[in-house]
């Protein structure tokens, strides 16, 4: 499928920064420990302009309770029990550097804002966010892409458990510094979107301030093909960007087709859907799914969907799914509709009985749902609103990605009114002198960085690119300093360590490897001995200072090597070109094979 011509894609890249949190001194490192929990309610409140935000009202209507697990890296600030502390200066510096790298105009005065988010993912009911810079561009493989803004935000609480009436969050992630880089909707293809995401992410990698681990990079994808803006939140892998954009294009085109048919059947506004209880219908008891739901105290309701026959699920017509998604968001799972019947234990005759019951005409469909009896709100409005929205072909909303690369309804798009100033913090005025100084460290972008990096260290562009892409720049520097050799560092970093961790099933951090290399180098070991020592490190798991003292890791060279070979020869063990093999069997200490070979040659 080719991409629609009017496809517009914009990205919001979110990058977690490491170190301390944005407004307190808690660490961004996680631990398993949980120190108790508290529970909270959130209430919809009027925004700055007196207008309550759509998305906020939507969440407020859901009326859920939130429980928060307290972790060692959370304090009274995350608990919303103390005003935020001053903005993390390291995070600010990173944001300024990235802004410089994106040619983005840094604000003269920065006001931290509160962005209302009442899905519970922030204990305060808002996310703190600050506009650091606006405008700018990045040169990507697909050309120059405009940057609309660079913001510094608090990350949200991590969802641990979801329930219809309450959600459990962990406070461990809440408050981590999140760099948000938004592009203009200049991107024309899904492939290009993935490329731009990768390029932007790299700018932060250059500064070596990126936190690693799950969730540390997330993208929001904004896109439109003319049916309004859809925002796909939280795409964690770059490859997934491709998938979700492709899926969304197909979805919207299909909706377009279905709506065309619907409009040919029903003129003007879509009529209100009206459901009724199906408690006594014979057909219900025939479906195990429905009967089970009824027995567990749910109410079975259903209603006619005028003009939707064949559009709910048939070929690429999938309006049924659109309706089911919003119902699920309201806590009503599992809609059955007539396009799926026969099925779910219901046979043709049941389909006819139900059609009759709902007085369906030839083009009409119907739906059946199970809902908790105590729900005061009828689902009819939700369904009617959803169909009317589809019919209007303004498909704008917030959607989420699935692991399969599809998308699903999350909530309406938030409005502009959701933000007001964080009153607990003073205005931040970046010092122009400081910015000038930071200019010297402006990130240069992937292509330039890799070529500089390769040249400076005298390593291949291929290796440089891999190191940069895998965000191993710091590690490389560390190993290079320890080993005293860039190529050995590359080898140990990209080959020895990954291979040995796989084999030994031991995770040993680069710091420790570096310590061992330093000890070895201080002992005057040659490269092959250093690499050998790293292998012993993984194989034994002993501390570096112990390994450095082990007899087995000391290289065997010169006179000692000559004597060993001589002895082997005298014992008649060395014959022709089995020298290296025999030597390896006779000593576990490392040696230089070429040195051994030349010694043999000299002895001969």
């Amino acid at each position: 499928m080719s991409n629609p011509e009017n496809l517009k894609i914009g990205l919001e890249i979110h990058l977690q920064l490491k170190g301390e949190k944005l407004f307190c001194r808690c660490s961004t490192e996680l631990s398993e420990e949980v120190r108790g929990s508290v529970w909270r309610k959130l209430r919809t409140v009027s925004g700055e302009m007196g207008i309550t935000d759509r998305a906020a009202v939507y969440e407020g209507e859901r009326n859920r309770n939130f429980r928060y697990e307290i972790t060692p890296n959370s304090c009274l600030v995350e608990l919303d029990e103390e005003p935020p502390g001053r903005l993390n200066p390291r995070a600010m510096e990173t944001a300024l550097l990235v802004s410089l790298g994106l040619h983005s105009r840094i604000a003269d005065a920065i006001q931290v804002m509160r962005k209302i988010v009442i899905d519970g993912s922030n204990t305060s009911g808002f996310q703190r966010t600050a506009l650091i810079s606006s405008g700018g561009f990045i040169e990507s493989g697909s050309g120059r892409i405009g940057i609309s803004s660079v913001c510094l935000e608090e990350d949200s609480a991590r969802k641990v458990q979801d329930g219809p009436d309450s959600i459990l969050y962990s406070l461990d992630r809440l408050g981590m510094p999140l760099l948000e880089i938004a592009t203009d909707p200049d991107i024309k293809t899904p492939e290009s979107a993935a490329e731009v995401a990768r390029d932007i992410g790299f700018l932060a990698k250059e500064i070596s301030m990126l936190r690693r681990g799950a969730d540390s990079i997330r993208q929001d994808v904004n896109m439109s093909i003319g049916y309004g803006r859809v925002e796909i939140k939280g795409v964690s892998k770059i490859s997934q960007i491709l998938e979700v954009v492709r899926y969304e294009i197909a979805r919207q085109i299909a909706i377009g087709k279905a709506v065309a048919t619907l409009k040919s059947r029903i003129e003007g506004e879509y009529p209100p859907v009206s459901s009724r209880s199906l408690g006594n219908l014979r057909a219900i008891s025939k479906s195990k799914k429905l009967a089970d739901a009824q027995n567990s105290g749910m109410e079975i309701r259903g209603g006619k969907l005028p003009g939707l026959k064949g559009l709910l699920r048939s070929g690429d017509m999938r309006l049924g799914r659109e309706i089911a998604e919003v119902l699920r968001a309201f806590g009503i799972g599992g809609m059955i509709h007539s396009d799926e019947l026969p099925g779910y234990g219901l046979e043709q005759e049941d389909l006819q009985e139900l059609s009759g019951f709902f007085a369906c005409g030839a083009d009409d469909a119907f739906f059946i749902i199970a809902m908790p009896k105590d729900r005061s709100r009828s689902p009819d409005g939700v369904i009617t609103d959803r169909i009317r929205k589809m019919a209007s072909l303004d498909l704008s909303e917030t959607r989420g990605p699935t692991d399969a690369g599809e998308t699903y309804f999350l909530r309406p798009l938030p409005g502009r009114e959701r933000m007001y100033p964080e009153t607990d913090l003073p205005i931040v005025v970046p010092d122009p002198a400081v910015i000038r100084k930071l200019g010297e460290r402006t990130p240069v972008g992937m292509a330039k960085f890799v070529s500089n990096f390769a040249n400076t260290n005298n390593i291949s562009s291929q290796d440089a690119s891999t190191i940069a892409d895998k965000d191993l720049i710091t590690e490389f520097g560390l190993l290079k300093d320890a080993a005293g050799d860039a190529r050995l560092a590359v080898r140990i970093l990209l080959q020895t360590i990954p291979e040995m961790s796989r084999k030994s099933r031991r995770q040993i951090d680069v710091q420790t490897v570096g310590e061992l290399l330093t000890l070895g180098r201080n002992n005057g070991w040659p490269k092959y001995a250093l690499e050998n020592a790293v292998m012993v490190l993984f194989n034994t798991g002993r501390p570096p200072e112990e390994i450095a003292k082990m007899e087995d890791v000391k290289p065997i060279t010169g006179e000692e090597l000559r004597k060993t070979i001589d002895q082997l020869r005298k014992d008649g063990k060395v014959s022709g070109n089995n020298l290296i093999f025999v030597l390896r069997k006779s000593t576990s200490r490392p040696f230089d094979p070429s040195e051994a070979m030349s010694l043999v040659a000299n002895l001969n």
Partner: protein
Amino acid sequence: MTRSPEVGDRISVMYHDGEIQGIFLTEDQDFLFLKLDSGYNTGISKKRIEATKVLQGKKEEIENNEKVVVDRGKGISVLSTGGTISSRVDYATGGVKPSRKMDSLYSEEMSKVHDISVHFKVVSSILSENMSPDLWVSVAGEVRNALDRDKGVVVFHGTDTMSYTASAIAFMLEEQTGTVVFTGAQRSPDRPSSDSYVNIEGSIKFASIQSGEVGICMHSGLSDDSVNLLRAVRSRKMHSSRRDAFKSMEYPEIGLISSGKQVYFRQERKASERNVVRNRLEPAVGLIFFNPTLSPEDVDQFAENRKCIVIMGTGLGHVAQRLIPTLREIIRGGTRVVMSTQCISGIVDMNVYSTGRDLLDAGVLHFGNILPEVAYVKAMYVLANYPDDEFEIRMAENMRGEILGRNHEVGNLE
């Protein structure tokens, strides 16, 4: 439009290399602040601005000023004095300020209390650090009027000095027909996470139980699931920011509401048949904190023109020996000196150590385990409403539960 920009106008700001559009919010000497279309506020250095243009006039703010009265007959009066609980964002300074315009801030909470009328009245709108004895007197009058009309009273108040005001009301209300509940917020109500909502709901419930208590209702812990009622004259704000900042010192909470249900309400002080207020306070009372560099001159100056000073002494009620001659002089001059303890918990007993005995000898008074701030408020009440020679006996009398008779519930044993 060519007029100069006013707050609320949509404007365009031109500078040498670009233009920014947004709603004009505020300016100070260096910056002009705009709200951008993205919702972000940003500041533009005035030095860089070449021109500004008004694009669109100010939008009228959407008023939503319904009167928060749910009238089902005799019910609860809610009196708002100000404080965070009745605050709105102040766009000028970026701070939070109490407002007289309560809008529909709490209509939801009011309507949740299904079976009772709620009568709302704004009596002042100040931050509680600006509260003073004359305002306490006017609050006392409002409370009396409200009690004459309704079953119980809830008072919205800033948390900073809530214990002082609530204690003053407790003393001035000599008889009362219903419960008076002070409540406030540690998180302002513009936040979805504000504690005010749960506090208000709980306060109205407590106020609708008939008793002779003046109490403070706030969160009992960090969760939004329980609020408690503390006796005003035994309560103190013990944390600057936590929502469970208020603690009842050495005295159990009076009532507890958990998960929306009343767990208990200890009926110790019963309601009276009528409401009697002695609405006079003597403001010439001071509270002074002893510390190692406090000098005789400090104390002397502080006592000048005061009828009574309350000292927060150390331990069982001590100050340095060097201050004793001055205290003796002050007392001879007719100023009462009352000793309390900066330990906050525990009794003042000046018989134990020689310093204490010397202070007693100098004429310093002490009244068991009354809290320092409460002693200070009580002295204002006693001086204004009783004959001068009854001061000591009235101060020693346990009027509103402020002096623990069987003090010292053992409490935390660890």
